[in-house]
């Protein structure tokens, strides 16, 4: 390891708590000038909180951030930018309708009322050349560029801030291999120019191929900072998982082969997202799609629910074909979908709990299209009991509930339909506390026991191991492996982060 004297950036004993949750506990590491430094860790390890503190979006409770020896007080993203810290966020923040030059000047702290496009032309040109976009014209509309090139424009913009530290938060998660190569080349060029780079990634292959050192976090603490030459995929996974919970998945439902498939998905493709996905679900079992952002797991669920117009493939419920891209057709066939975005694509927040629970059941609580009070309250009482909600509060708006209870209402709505055959859930316990999580797991298991087929996506190893009968891992839009029997968490993590590459290939 490099001695501290050479380090340009030094993070010292950073600590941050949110309420009673200690998100980051005394994290320390350093990055030398010209070094590409990876930050790894499983979801919830505290990586994104560290990134937020470094980029001025969160203030640490204690600890120090030093660049070039001086301690920085990063109160806002603007201050961080002025201190030479540039962040390329997970989500693209470029504007397709503007030109390349306009995008490069966007959010630049030095921009005054008058942006002198002509004067800054040569400077912008050299920024583009630095990231390998020599072929791109400054006055070209951004909408003509591909996703990978847009990501490079983001990096170029971050560089334009005269960054001393460039933070890249999962820059390749949604990119193809070819596009990712452009990003790697740009990152190497930037590092060669003397910039320190913090590279956050879930893709362990690229971490080992690109970075100089790797800092691994687990449960909010730094496990180790290691030279990449001393690491393999497996030793990285051991660092990320720790020694303790290496328990294998226990199988629950032993009903395989008892009855036919209720949902069969064949050759499902979503352009740029999912390639040739096939899976059959049997009733009474819980299936999981394990995959990180950009793996396509979420897209498979959305496409099956009819929410992706561009999707193509053969989707059947009980042998009957369901037209892709039509949510009403999917719902009618008995597919209930729980989105990962319950606020904008799930619940009706200002409406009462009762309305939300029965939103998809209106035909069964009406007689001659008129609401039938008796049926309404009978169905409602059933559902409230099933979900473990407070029967006395069904008139309150969903907005007044905690996140966990909101999610229960959302899942409960899918369960409530007596005609529902398949329940799809996209990351069902995201942002849900431990208690709510256990309750939702119980709901899913109950649903399976009552004969539904349940398919959920998740990146949480414990959830995958505890809840699912079958785990299908996905990486970069394709299925890596289907696990019907026992499987260790480290195997799942390896497949989620590295795909199906044979062990021999990974050693450098």
């Amino acid at each position: 390891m490099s001695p501290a004297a050479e380090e340009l950036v030094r993070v010292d004993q950073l600590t941050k708590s949110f309420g009673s949750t200690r998100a980051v506990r005394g994290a320390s590491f350093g990055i030398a000038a010209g070094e590409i430094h990876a930050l790894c860790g499983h979801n919830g390890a505290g990586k994104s909180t560290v990134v937020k503190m470094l980029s001025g979006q969160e203030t640490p409770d204690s600890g120090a951030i030093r660049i070039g020896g001086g301690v920085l007080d990063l109160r806002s993203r603007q201050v961080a930018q002025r201190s030479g810290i540039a962040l390329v966020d997970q989500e693209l923040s470029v504007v397709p309708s503007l030109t390349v030059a306009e995008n490069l000047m966007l959010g630049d702290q030095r921009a005054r009322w008058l942006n002198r496009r002509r004067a800054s032309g040569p400077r912008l040109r050299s920024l583009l050349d630095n990231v390998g976009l020599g072929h791109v014209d400054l006055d070209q509309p951004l909408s003509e560029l591909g996703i990978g090139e847009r990501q490079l424009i983001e990096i170029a913009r971050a560089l334009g801030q005269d960054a001393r530290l460039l933070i890249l938060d999962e820059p390749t998660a949604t990119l193809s291999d070819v596009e990712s190569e452009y990003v790697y080349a740009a990152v190497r060029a930037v590092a060669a120019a003397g910039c320190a780079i913090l590279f956050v990634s879930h893709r362990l292959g690229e971490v080992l191929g690109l970075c100089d050192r790797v800092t691994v976090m687990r449960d909010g603490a730094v496990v180790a900072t290691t030279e990449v030459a001393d690491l393999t995929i497996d030793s990285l996974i051991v660092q990320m998982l720790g020694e303790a919970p290496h328990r294998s998945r226990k199988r629950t439902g032993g009903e395989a082969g008892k009855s036919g498939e209720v949902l069969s998905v064949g050759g499902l493709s979503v352009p740029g997202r999912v390639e040739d996905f096939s899976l059959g679900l049997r009733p009474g079992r819980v299936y999981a799609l394990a995959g990180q952002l950009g793996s396509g797991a979420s897209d498979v669920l959305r496409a099956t629910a009819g929410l992706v117009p561009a999707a193509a493939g053969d989707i059947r419920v009980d042998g009957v074909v369901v037209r892709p891209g039509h949510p009403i057709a999917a719902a009618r066939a008995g597919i209930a979908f729980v989105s990962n975005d319950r606020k904008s694509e799930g619940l009706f927040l200002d409406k009462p709990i009762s309305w939300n629970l029965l939103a998809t059941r209106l035909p069964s609580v009406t007689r001659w299209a008129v609401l039938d009070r008796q049926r309404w309250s009978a169905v409602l009482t059933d559902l409230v009991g099933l979900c473990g909600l407070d029967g006395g509060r069904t008139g309150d708006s969903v907005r007044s509930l905690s996140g966990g209870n909101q999610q229960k209402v959302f899942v409960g709505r899918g369960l409530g339909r007596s005609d529902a055959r398949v329940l799809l859930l996209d990351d069902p316990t995201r942002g849900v506390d431990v208690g709510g999580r256990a309750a939702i797991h119980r709901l899913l298991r109950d649903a399976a026991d009552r004969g539904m087929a349940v398919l959920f996506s998740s990146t949480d190893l414990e959830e995958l191991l505890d809840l699912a009968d079958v785990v299908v891992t996905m990486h970069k839009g394709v299925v890596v492996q289907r696990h019907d029997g026992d499987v260790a968490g480290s195997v799942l993590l390896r497949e989620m982060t590295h795909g199906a590459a044979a062990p021999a290939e990974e050693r450098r």
Partner: protein
Amino acid sequence: MNVMSARPRSAAPIRRPGLVVDGVLLLAVLAAIVLALTTDRFLTVANAKAILTSASLVGIAALGLTLITIGGSAVSLAISPSVAAVGMIFLSAQSLGLIAALVLAVLCGTLITGLQGAVVGYAAANPVVLTIAASFAITGIATGVSGGSTVSPTAGGYDRLNATPGGVALSVYVLIGLALIVEWTLRRTGFGRSLYLIGENRRAARAAGLPVGRMTAVAWLGAGALFAVTAAFTAAFNTSANVNLGGTLTFDAIAAVLAGGTPISGGRGSALRTLAGAVLIAAASDILLLRGYSTGVQIMVKGVIVLVVVVTVHLRTRGSRA
């Protein structure tokens, strides 16, 4: 285990902006009452009839617009042209008899507005843009077919719509009856309930598999029928109809819906609120008229009422959400 019993503890401080708004509202209502009581001839049966009559035509159209607004399609800007076109059809069909002419008018009105609703519902067109285009199209076709002339009725059956049973205009009875029907439909039918859900969160409704397109189209069909009823009464009252029959009805109806406190964003509101909004605007205009203010002032006050109600509704909902 009762996990949901913990009510938001911060309820008390949150209510405060709501209380301020309530206080201001109460003062405004008091001022209006004092103003009304001190206005000569305001509190007479004859004046009450006048207010209701002037509210009735706008009110019926506003009930239709309420369906559109609650369903999340904001507004239709093609109310006046639709009413003018349907009014012309109604009067020129008088030779068929009143009932047949009414049925024909309602069918045409339903078709004209329902078509726009189908495009909004199934093709997710922007209702404002679409209805601006539709209003030009409707006016254009009406002008072309009528040759720009005024339609005069061929028989006198329409005059029965101008009847005043019990001394009150027939349109007032129709307004109250229709308001009750629309209110019941919104509250007690599956259609009404899904309309509120779709209006609040269209994306969620779509993801849940609700028939978003169909329900939107049905809401606009209902609105078209109500616009047609307005058209028949307006045409009968004017005894002739041309492409300008609708007058300022589009904005008057929008004003009534907003003054009733139905938010333009959809998902909330009611028919009875719209009824109250229409009466409120009519009463305010009436007070100003009795006190001798000019038409200009009356129109300005209409705008102020809409503004005050919209701001109040916004502040109150924000207060209850915070």
